[in-house]
C-alpha cells in the first residue's frame, strides 16, 4: 500500500491552520473544568475524584481499625461527627456491628471501584495514553466526558447510601446472595439497592472508558508507532481495557438480577426453602446463590489484574527512565501481559473452593491459577533484571516504583497457598487473605500510582513535586504499610476470621497473640495516615510553589508524552509526531544525553 502513509499524513492536516484558530476561543469555567472533552482535563478530574475517594476509603478503614483495637470505645475526633451524621448506628460515637459491616463493605467497594480503578485506568490511562501514542486526544472525546460523569454520579450514589434508612450496603464488597438480599428484606429500597444501582453506573462508565481506550490505541497511534514500539504502559492499558470490556458485563447482568431480587422479591439467587430468623422467606425460591458468585468472580478476578496491570505499566516506565537502560525483555513483558489478560478470565472459581466444588472443577481452576502466576513472575523478573547494572536515580518516584517490586512480590507469593484448595480450606476468609490482597493492592498498586503521580506531575503542571516531602511520604508509607499488613498473615494463620466487628474477640478460634496484634496494627495505620500528610501538602503546594521544570522533558525520557509542550495544550502536539524507534532507547552510546527519543529521526 503505497498510498497508506500519504493518506495518514493527509488526514492529520485536513484542516488548514487558520480554521483551527477560529474554534479556539477560550472556554468558560464549566466547559473547561466540568464538561471538558480534553483527555488531559478528564484525566485530572478522574485523578482528583479518585484521590478523594481513596482518602474517604482510608478514613472508613481508620474507623474500623479503631473499633478492632478498642471494641466498644467511642472513636476519637470523628466520633461525634459520625453520631450526628448516622444517628443510632454510631450512638455515642461507638461503631455498632451493623455500621462496622457497612464500613467494611463500602471500604472495599470504594477502594476497588471508586479509587484504584479510576486512578489507574481513568486518570493515568486518560492523561498519559494518548500522549504516549502520539494522539491529539481520545478517539471519542464526548464519550470520555460521559464516562467520567457516569462514574461521578455512581460515586455520589454510593456515598448517599450511608444516609438511607438501614445504612449503606453491609454484605461485604462481594455482596454475596442471599445475605445481600435478606439483610434488609422488608425494606426493598435499602443501602444494598443503592449499591447495586451505583455499581451499574460504575460498570457502564468503565465499559464506555474501555471502548474508548481500545479504539484510541488501535486507531490513533502516530505514524510509525507500530505495536512493538508501544511503551509498556500503553500495552498494560490495552490489556486492561479488554479485561474491563469483557469481564464487567457479566457483573452488570448479575447486578441487575440482584437488583430485581431486592426490589421485586424474585429468587434468582435465593434457594428454595430459605429460612431467615426462623421464618421461611416469602419468595418463590428455585434460584442459585452460586450463580451470583460465578458472575461476581468472573469480573472479580480479572479485576485484580485491572488493578495491577496499569501499576506494572507505570512502574516499567519509571524504572526504564531512572535506570537509564532499556527495559530488559520488553517483548516477553508484552506477551506476558497478554497471557495474564487471557488467563485471568478462567481462574475465577479459585475464590469459591469452599462453596462445594467438585474435584474435577477444582483441579481445573487450580491448574489455571498456578499458570497465571507464571506471566506475573515474568514481568516482575524482567523489571528486577532491568535494575541490574543501571546507574539508578533514586528520586521519589523511583523509590516508590522500586519498592513496588518486593511489595507486589510478597502479595503475589502469599497468594499461592490460596490458589490450592487444600491450603485454601484453612486460610479462606481469614486475615491471611486480607494481608495477601492488600499487599498486592496497597503497597503494590497504590505505590505504583504514587510513583506515577510524582513522575508525571511535572508534565501536568510544569513544576516538580517537593523531593524532601516526597521522601518523608515514601519512607513513612513503606514502614506503615508493612507494619499494617505483615502481622495480618500471622493473625490469619492463627485462625482469625475476617469481617468480625470486634476482631474476633467474642468468637472462638483466634488466640491472644492474634488479638493483641490488632492494637499494634491500628497504631501502624495511624502512622500510615500521618505519612500521607506530606503528600497532600505536596500535591497542592507544588502547583504554585514547586520548582519549575527546565524544559519539556525534565526526566530526559524517550517516550512521546515528553515530546509535548508543558503542560500539553488542547490537541497535545505542536505538529504531528512521527515515530522512528522503540520506546526505551536509553544508554545509546553516541546520543546526546545518552538517550534517543522515539520521534528522533535516525
Amino acid at each position: 500500500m503505497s498510498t497508506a502513509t500519504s493518506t495518514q499524513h493527509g488526514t492529520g492536516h485536513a484542516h488548514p491552520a487558520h480554521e483551527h484558530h477560529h474554534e479556539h476561543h477560550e472556554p468558560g469555567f464549566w466547559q473547561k473544568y466540568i464538561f471538558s472533552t480534553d483527555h488531559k482535563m478528564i484525566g485530572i478530574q478522574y485523578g482528583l475524584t479518585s484521590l478523594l475517594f481513596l482518602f474517604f476509603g482510608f478514613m472508613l478503614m481508620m474507623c474500623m481499625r479503631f473499633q478492632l483495637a478498642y471494641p466498644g470505645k467511642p472513636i476519637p475526633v470523628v466520633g461525634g461527627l459520625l453520631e450526628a451524621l448516622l444517628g443510632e448506628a454510631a450512638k455515642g460515637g461507638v461503631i455498632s456491628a451493623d455500621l462496622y459491616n457497612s464500613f467494611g463493605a463500602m471500604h472495599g467497594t470504594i477502594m476497588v471501584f471508586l479509587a484504584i480503578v479510576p486512578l489507574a485506568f481513568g486518570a493515568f490511562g486518560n492523561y498519559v495514553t494518548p500522549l504516549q501514542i502520539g494522539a491529539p486526544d481520545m478517539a471519542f472525546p464526548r464519550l470520555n466526558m460521559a464516562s467520567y460523569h457516569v462514574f461521578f454520579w455512581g460515586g455520589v450514589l454510593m456515598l448517599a447510601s450511608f444516609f438511607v434508612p438501614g445504612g449503606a450496603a453491609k454484605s461485604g464488597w462481594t455482596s454475596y446472595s442471599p445475605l445481600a438480599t435478606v439483610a434488609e428484606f422488608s425494606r426493598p429500597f435499602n443501602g444494598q439497592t443503592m449499591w447495586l444501582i451505583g455499581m451499574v453506573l460504575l460498570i457502564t462508565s468503565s465499559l464506555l472508558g474501555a471502548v474508548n481506550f481500545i479504539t484510541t490505541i488501535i486507531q490513533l497511534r502516530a505514524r510509525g508507532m507500530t505495536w512493538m514500539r508501544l511503551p509498556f504502559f500503553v500495552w498494560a492499558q490495552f490489556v486492561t481495557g479488554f479485561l474491563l470490556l469483557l469481564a464487567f458485563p457479566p457483573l452488570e447482568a448479575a447486578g441487575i438480577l440482584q437488583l430485581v431480587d431486592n426490589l421485586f422479591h424474585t429468587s434468582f439467587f435465593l434457594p428454595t426453602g430459605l429460612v431467615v430468623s426462623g421464618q421461611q422467606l416469602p419468595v418463590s425460591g428455585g434460584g442459585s446463590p452460586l450463580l451470583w458468585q460465578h458472575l461476581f468472580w468472573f469480573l472479580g478476578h480479572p479485576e485484580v489484574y485491572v488493578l495491577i496491570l496499569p501499576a506494572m505499566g507505570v512502574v516499567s516506565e519509571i524504572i526504564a527512565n531512572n535506570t537509564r537502560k532499556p527495559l530488559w525483555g520488553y517483548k516477553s513483558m508484552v506477551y506476558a501481559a497478554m497471557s495474564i489478560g487471557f488467563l485471568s478470565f478462567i481462574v475465577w472459581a479459585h475464590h469459591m473452593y469452599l462453596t462445594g466444588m467438585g474435584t474435577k472443577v477444582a483441579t481445573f481452576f487450580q491448574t489455571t491459577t498456578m499458570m497465571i502466576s507464571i506471566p506475573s513472575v515474568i514481568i516482575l523478573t524482567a523489571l528486577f533484571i532491568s535494575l541490574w547494572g543501571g546507574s539508578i536515580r533514586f528520586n521519589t518516584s523511583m523509590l516508590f516504583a522500586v519498592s513496588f517490586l518486593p511489595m507486589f512480590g510478597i502479595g503475589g507469593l502469599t497468594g499461592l497457598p490460596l490458589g490450592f484448595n487444600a491450603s485454601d480450606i484453612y486460610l479462606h476468609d481469614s486475615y491471611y487473605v486480607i494481608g495477601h490482597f492488600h499487599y498486592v493492592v496497597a503497597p503494590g498498586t497504590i505505590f505504583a500510582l504514587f510513583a506515577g503521580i510524582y513522575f508525571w506531575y511535572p508534565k501536568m503542571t510544569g513544576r516538580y513535586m517537593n523531593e524532601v516531602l516526597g521522601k518523608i511520604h515514601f519512607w513513612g508509607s513503606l514502614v506503615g504499610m508493612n507494619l499494617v499488613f505483615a502481622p495480618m498473615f500471622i493473625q490469619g494463620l492463627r485462625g482469625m476470621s475476617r469481617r468480625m466487628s470486634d476482631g474476633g474477640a467474642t468468637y472462638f478460634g483466634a488466640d491472644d497473640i492474634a488479638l493483641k496484634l490488632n492494637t499494634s496494627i491500628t497504631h501502624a495505620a495511624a502512622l500510615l495516615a500521618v505519612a500521607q500528610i506530606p503528600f497532600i501538602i505536596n500535591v497542592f503546594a507544588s502547583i504554585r510553589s514547586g520548582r519549575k521544570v527546565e524544559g519539556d522533558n525534565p526526566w530526559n525520557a524517550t517516550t512521546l508524552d515528553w515530546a509535548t509542550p508543558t503542560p500539553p495544550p488542547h490537541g497535545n502536539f505542536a505538529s504531528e509526531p512521527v515515530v522512528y524507534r522503540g520506546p526505551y532507547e536509553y544508554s545509546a552510546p553516541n546520543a546526546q544525553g545518552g538517550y534517543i527519543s522515539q520521534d528522533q529521526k535516525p
Partner: protein
Amino acid sequence: MSDHSNHAPAHADGHDHHDIASHIRTYLVVFGALLVGTVITVGMYYVHFESMAVTVAVALFIASIKAFLVAGYFMHLLSEKKVIYSMLAVTVVFFFALGTLTLWSSNDMPRNSEAKALYVP
C-alpha cells in the same frame, strides 16, 4: 482509495452502484431465508423429539444459522477487517468459558441424597 472525494460516499470504500445493487439482492434473499428459518423453528416446536438434548440441539442449530446470516450479511462480518475478527474471537472464547465453566462446576457439585431431602421446605 481516493482520499479527497468528499462527496459521493458510494465511492469512498470502493463500492459502486452496481456493487450495491447486487448487495441489495443478497439482503433480500437473506431476509427470505430468515423468515423461512423462523417458520422452521416454530414448526419444530410441534414436532416432538424424544430427548430434550435433541430438541435443544435442533433449535440452537437453526438459531445459529439465522445468526450467521444476520452477522455475515447484514453486519458484513463475512468481509470484515482482521482487527474486528480478532476482537470477536477473543470475545467468543470468553463467552463460552463463562457458560461452560459455570455449568460444569454446578454439575460437578458433590451431592448427597440426605442433604437433598433437607432442601425441600
